[in-house]
């Protein structure tokens, strides 16, 4: 049986962010630190983000998907991809990549 994707991922992530419920996992926080990406960069990119459905993956528990979003921060100097998992009431960021960084291309 195929798992349906949530049709309004970006809106849901923005809502979580505005409620303070968009949280990076410990692993994602390390990636942010290594790539010089701050929470404000991620929050800014959400408002001009697009979905990267090709990077979505089914969750290990098979109940939903891990969703990929990509966009630039306000300065335009960071091209960020995040992968999120919905775990109500939180939305968890599990991966952060800066596509402008050579190692993340």
């Amino acid at each position, binding site marked *: 049986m195929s798992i349906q994707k949530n049709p309004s991922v970006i809106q849901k992530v923005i809502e979580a962010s505005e409620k*303070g419920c968009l949280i990076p996992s*410990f692993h994602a926080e390390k990636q942010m630190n290594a790539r010089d990406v*701050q929470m404000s960069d991620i929050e800014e990119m959400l408002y001009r983000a697009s979905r990267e459905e090709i990077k979505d993956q089914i969750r290990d528990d098979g109940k939903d998907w891990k969703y990929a979003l990509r966009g630039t921060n306000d300065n335009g100097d960071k091209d960020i991809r995040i992968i999120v998992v919905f*775990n109500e009431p939180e939305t968890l960021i*599990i991966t952060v990549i800066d596509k402008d960084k050579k190692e993340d291309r």
Partner: protein
Amino acid sequence: MRTLETYTFKGFGFDVILKDVAVKSVEGEDYPSINMNELKTNTAKALLTNKQRLIGYQLKFLRTYLDMSFDQVSEKLHIPASTLRSWENKGNDFTGLSLEQEKAFRILSINQILELEKSRFNIEVTLIKEFQTPSKVVALDIGSTSESFIVNG
């Protein structure tokens, strides 16, 4: 659910030490059980009263937390927007703000926070439908607002 006695959050670019943080897990990924809005508010307040000069990451954190553009801050402090941008990019190094400019920025930030809190309180009071009159007056619980964070430079 396990609890970390201390946990250093680095997601703003500088260290914020949190105490007694519960850890949740999903999909094999551990994460802190925190509310980002509360963390930002507490961090901003701690930074503004911290006697240490602001570093680039902290300037960026405060400007974005208060939802101010480079142009808005630039106009208030009489500093070119391009200069502010370059100071934010100093990251872990101190900004080029003079003492007077930094004081002015902190006061501007405090006023912005007060405005935000004022509108938040106004909404909360406006939304109250009824005040309670219990037979016994209940103690006010403010435990959740205790100081549970430390900001490092």
